[in-house]
């Protein structure tokens, strides 16, 4: 390198060494595995400074912001990584170091790590707090659907919504659900639906896929947009076993897009059954009311006065009849009694009657004044007297009176 002794400046030497490193193809693209230490994140510049070490040695490393921005995870001390980059010299310090272009966690996949890190960070921040979750309305009038217009998910969601609750209108925002454009489109759709106030609940999601496919739903920006939505969001990404950051940020996580549709709306048939049940309860309550009222006036309705209003009169008539017959009986008895008394009396009268004496052949004499003559001193000769026998009378003239024996 040096033909004859000459004196170099430090700059010349460092520049020369830098050239030497950079012209070595073995150093232009190396993969190095090691443990991160002395990690420094220069937030202002976005450059990452750290060291990689193993049991014996250490090498300084730097990752510039333009490369670091593509990292899904943040390196930290003690983390095993595989770094890809070139080895160069920072001429100012003469420090040789690894210029890292890409970094992968060793062992655990980069995306998995990124997922865990973002999840932990947002969780600490409180973005997933239960108190942040908005309730899903029971009877949404409009349902926002943010997903791909071509996947199975959109078909599943529409089918379930139409079957369960056709009353609600579907507001569909077609977006890409994987690739670079997915996250900004999803965020934009969330903002638009919120701006237009055109939905009461939003379903955001996609069907199953690889972790890379689902990645937009693990983007911090998407998670923040979901959490920021004024309208409740149901997240439905991939299959039952797929969890995304978006799921945690959403107000409700559904295992699949179909399930999200089921969670978003009530079921028509259940509602119909419910209405029918309510109607039955209504009828029963009314019937109960009526029968209670009926029961309260039944004793009245069945009272004898209302049931047979003539009964008291009949009773009176019966009493009257009884009295009449008693009256009759007593009158009859009285008459019989009187009759008997009469015949007894008349018998006794017969016994005393002068006619009875006459019938035995005796005669009664009356003077002209009709007075009965019972002594000769009451008549004088030539006096006209009447003589009464049992079957009539005759007149005769007294010739003479003769005293005789008394018949007494």
């Amino acid at each position, binding site marked *: 390198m040096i033909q004859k002794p000459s004196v170099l400046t430090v700059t010349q030497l460092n520049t020369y060494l830098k050239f030497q490193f950079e012209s070595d193809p073995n150093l232009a693209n190396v993969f190095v595995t090691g443990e991160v230490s002395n990690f420094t994140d220069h937030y202002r510049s976005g450059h990452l400074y750290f060291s990689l070490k193993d049991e014996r040695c250490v090498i300084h490393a730097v990752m510039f912001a333009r490369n670091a921005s593509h990292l899904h995870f943040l390196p930290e001390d003690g983390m095993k990584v595989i770094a890809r980059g070139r080895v160069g010299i920072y001429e100012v310090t003469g420090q040789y170091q690894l210029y890292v272009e890409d970094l992968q966690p060793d062992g655990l996949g980069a995306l998995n790590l990124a997922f865990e890190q973002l999840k932990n960070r947002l969780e600490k921040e409180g973005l997933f707090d239960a108190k942040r979750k908005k309730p899903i309305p*029971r*009877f949404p*009038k409009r349902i926002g659907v943010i997903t791909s217009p071509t996947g199975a998910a959109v078909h599943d969601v*529409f089918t379930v*919504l*139409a079957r369960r609750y*056709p*009353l*609600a*209108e*579907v*507001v*569909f*925002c*077609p977006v890409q659900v994987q690739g670079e454009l997915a996250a900004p489109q999803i965020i*934009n*759709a969330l903002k*638009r*639906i919120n701006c*237009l106030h*055109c939905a009461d609940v939003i379903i955001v999601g996609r069907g199953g896929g690889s972790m890379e496919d689902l990645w937009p739903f693990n983007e911090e920006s998407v998670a923040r947009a979901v959490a920021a939505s004024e309208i409740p969001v149901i997240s439905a990404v991939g299959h039952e076993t797929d969890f995304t950051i978006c799921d945690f940020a959403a107000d409700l996580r559904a295992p699949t897009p179909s399930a999200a549709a089921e969670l978003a709306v009530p079921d*028509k048939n259940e*509602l*119909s059954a419910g*209405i*029918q049940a*309510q*109607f039955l*309860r*209504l*009828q029963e*309550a*009314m019937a*109960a*009311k*009526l029968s*209670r*009222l009926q029961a309260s006036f039944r004793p009245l309705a069945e009272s004898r006065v209302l049931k047979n209003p003539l009964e008291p009169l009949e009773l009176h008539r019966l009493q009257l009849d009884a009295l009449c017959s008693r009256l009759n009986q007593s009158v009859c008895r009285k008459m019989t009694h009187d009759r008997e008394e009469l015949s007894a009396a008349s018998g006794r009268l017969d016994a005393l009657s002068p006619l009875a004496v006459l019938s035995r052949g005796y005669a009664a004499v009356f003077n002209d004044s009709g007075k009965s003559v019972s002594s000769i001193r009451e008549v004088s000769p030539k006096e006209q007297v009447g003589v009464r026998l049992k079957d009539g009378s005759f007149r005769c003239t007294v010739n003479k009176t003769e005293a005789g024996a008394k018949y007494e």
Partner: protein
Amino acid sequence: MSKKMTFEAALSRLNEIVEQLERGDTPLEESLKLFEEGSALAASCYKKLSEAEQKVKTITEEEEKSNGEN
């Protein structure tokens, strides 16, 4: 039932009526009116459910202003 009444409002009114009638302390005349109202609400809710057809409106960035129907 009012035409303007939402399904949700109709359903909640129906529940209210059922509960009121079930308490049984409403006078007969009012009970009959409530029963009539409740029956009408149930019929109308039922009808709404069975006759509804889902509408889908698609909003894309280009159509944002016009809100085109799908």
